[in-house]
């Protein structure tokens, strides 16, 4: 089967390589940007345990099941667990990270809209997993 034209194959290979480069570069770039925590981000310690979320602000204020933050500020979550593996999720802000016993995982976000948003566990963690919820309350500055 020799002697036939091979240019379509080469074009195909070129297009595939170009697309793979584009997909890889885009994904790598967004991941790099998303993981870059702003220096002035306020740290909030998040602890998951069957079946509640507790939060501790930098000033020592603690909250259970509710988290109050200000719109337009950056927050860095330090997430851990007291018992089994949970997963901390704020769906509306695309925050999702496992809470693992003995380990601190970090993720940051900056709320852009005031209002109330769901916090939920996204890793099956036992009988009441379905109800391991919380509320993110985003307030205007100075409210």
């Amino acid at each position, binding site marked *: 089967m020799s002697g036939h034209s091979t240019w379509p194959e*080469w074009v195909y290979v070129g297009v595939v390589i170009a697309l793979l480069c*584009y997909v890889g570069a885009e994904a790598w770039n967004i991941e790099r*940007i998303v993981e*870059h925590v702003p220096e002035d981000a306020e740290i909030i310690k998040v602890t998951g345990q069957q079946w509640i979320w507790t939060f501790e602000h930098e000033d020592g204020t603690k909250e259970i099941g509710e988290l109050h933050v200000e719109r337009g500020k950056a927050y860095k979550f330090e997430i851990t667990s007291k018992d089994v593996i949970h997963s901390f999720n704020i769906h509306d802000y*695309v925050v999702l990270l496992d809470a693992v016993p003995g380990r601190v995982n970090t993720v940051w976000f900056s709320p852009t809209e005031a209002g109330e948003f769901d916090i939920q566990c996204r890793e099956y963690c036992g009988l009441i997993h379905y109800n391991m919820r919380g509320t993110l309350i985003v307030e205007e500055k100075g409210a």
Partner: protein
Amino acid sequence: MKVIIGLGAILGLLFVLPAAEQVFAAGSEVGEYLDRKAAIWGLFYRLMIVAFTVGTVVSGLIVWLVLRFRESNPKAKPTSYEAAGSW
């Protein structure tokens, strides 16, 4: 062949260079926070465009191949070795 490889390289660079430029330019703003939702969903939509475009082209090509080269196609003709009965 050189023309084809050169063309492939140019096509590759056309995709790679803008992405690389974006990479080195990003993250230099001060006091502005990233809208995580927009960044992640934006990436998702861009990659979906690539995925669905590739999916459409590949499946279209397969459908065309199957229809064009089916035995019952009036345009079908045997390959040289089939015609010679040499396989």
